[in-house]
């Protein structure tokens, strides 16, 4: 190294300047390193994996919905509600272990607490007709066309009190009518005593299967045809809001009558049941004051009459999903086929 104190060795100025420049260059290199690190930080971030969390949640809800549907459809006898709930719990436990395993492969811990599951009592009302072997939508004992399906159905919090109300109707069985005068056609009425919502199913002028809806408080002439389909038979999903598998936005079961403003419960009625034939299923919430009309619906399974069997209306259970970056917990409510408010 040069001796800076020796006056005979000139060049101190250049030497000092060289050191200073070296320091500046080192600083620049460090800054470039920071910039590279920043780029690295920017590109390595792959989100927190909330998609996996939401995927787990929907798998749990869909899977539990399928289990509830299958167990309800197995038609347990009256008094076998404990057996039904036990089997649903077993199904949920099997689902939990499968989902847990699949979450484990993504380095996540997922858990559905099946032991903490709570069940909401319900009844499945069913009439076993099909499009090929249609039966009229009349009551069980005396084939009356105007009858009450269920009374005092109470909502609970966000949940509704009727779900999975699906009917298959044949076009030939329906009454020809129009939206301006549908009174003679088959219709489903939802009423809370002071207001009533009507859904008419009829054959429209062009021969198609049509659904007309009359909101509470409107005159019959205010009925509007919300959708139609040209077919020999079609599936009307009253709670899911579809006709023939196509979305039908105007068909929202119960309208305001079954909406969150109604807290006292509502009744579901059938009118002109002899003007429609096919088959149907619906699940109603019998917790609280809700009940299926015993006189009109058979208490035991029947080949050609509407009947009821015990069902799970809804099940709630806590789920939890954890990874190094995200924690998610929720108590999910599963009621497949319920109308979204």
């Amino acid at each position, binding site marked *: 190294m040069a001796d800076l104190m020796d*006056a*005979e060795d*000139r060049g*101190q*100025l*250049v030497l000092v*300047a060289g050191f*200073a*420049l070296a320091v*500046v260059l080192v*600083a*620049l290199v*460090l*800054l470039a390193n*920071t*910039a590279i*690190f*920043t780029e690295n*930080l*920017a590109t390595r*971030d792959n*989100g*927190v994996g*909330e998609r996996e*969390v*939401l995927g787990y*949640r929907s798998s749990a809800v869909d899977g539990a919905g399928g289990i509830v549907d299958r167990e309800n459809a197995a038609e347990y006898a009256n008094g076998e509600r404990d057996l039904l709930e036990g089997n649903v719990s077993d199904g949920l436990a099997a689902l939990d272990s499968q989902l847990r395993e699949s979450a484990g492969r993504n380095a996540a811990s997922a858990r559905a607490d099946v032991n903490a599951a709570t069940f909401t009592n319900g009844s499945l009302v069913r009439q076993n007709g099909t499009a090929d072997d249609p039966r009229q939508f009349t009551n069980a004992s005396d084939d009356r066309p105007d009858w009450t399906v269920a009374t005092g159905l109470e909502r609970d919090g966000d949940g509704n009190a009727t779900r999975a109300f699906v009917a298959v109707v044949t076009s030939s069985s329906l009454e020809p009518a129009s939206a301006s005068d549908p009174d003679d056609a088959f219709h489903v009425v939802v009423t809370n005593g002071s207001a009533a919502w009507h859904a008419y199913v009829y054959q429209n002028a062009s021969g198609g299967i049509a659904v007309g809806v009359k909101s509470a408080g409107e005159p019959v002439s205010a009925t509007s045809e919300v959708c139609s389909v040209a077919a020999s038979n079609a599936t009307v999903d009253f709670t899911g809001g579809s006709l023939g598998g196509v979305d039908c936005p105007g068909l929202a079961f119960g309208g305001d009558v079954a909406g969150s403003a109604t807290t006292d419960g509502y009744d579901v009625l059938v009118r002109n049941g002899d003007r429609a034939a096919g088959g149907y299923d619906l699940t109603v919430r019998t917790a609280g004051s809700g009940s299926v009309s015993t006189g009109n619906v058979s208490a035991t399974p029947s080949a050609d009459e509407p009947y009821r069997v015990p069902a799970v209306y809804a099940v709630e259970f806590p789920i*939890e999903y954890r990874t*190094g*970056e*995200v*924690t*998610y*917990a*929720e*108590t*999910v409510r599963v009621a497949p086929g319920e109308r979204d408010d």
Partner: protein
Amino acid sequence: MTDSPRPRDGSTAPSSSSTRPRASRDRATATTLSYVLTLGITALLISGLLVAAGGAVESQREDTTREAMEVVGQQLSSRLMAADRLVAAGGSEVSVRGTYPETIAGSTYSIAVEPGSPATIELTATGTRVSVTVAAPTRTPVAETTLSGGDVEVVYAGGQLEVREA
């Protein structure tokens, strides 16, 4: 800066006396002047270079800091929005964690979360006073908070999203 250099033996260089027979006492003056001029110009050039390089380093540092804070801010914003999506899906207990450097370009920084529509995240470097603002539109309200940079956690508590130090 330094003393003006003198000829070693107080006379003109031997080479110049040998190649130029006409001896002149004024020749030394020219050499001294030339040294002073050379040194002065060199000093001027070098200090100009240093000043320019220093300025370049400073502006580079600010740029790097801004860029790094933008990255951190955007990642924090994406975590806030991810937490918002999880809350919207119905989550009752939601927490999202993020790992970030404690210093950026050698300087610590602060994170200020401001509620509003949309909520904003402002990062300020303590050294360079460089500040970056990133928007984080969420449906869930966001709590107002200020914390120092580093690992953070977005927690859903009391109906709002809160950014905390992890």
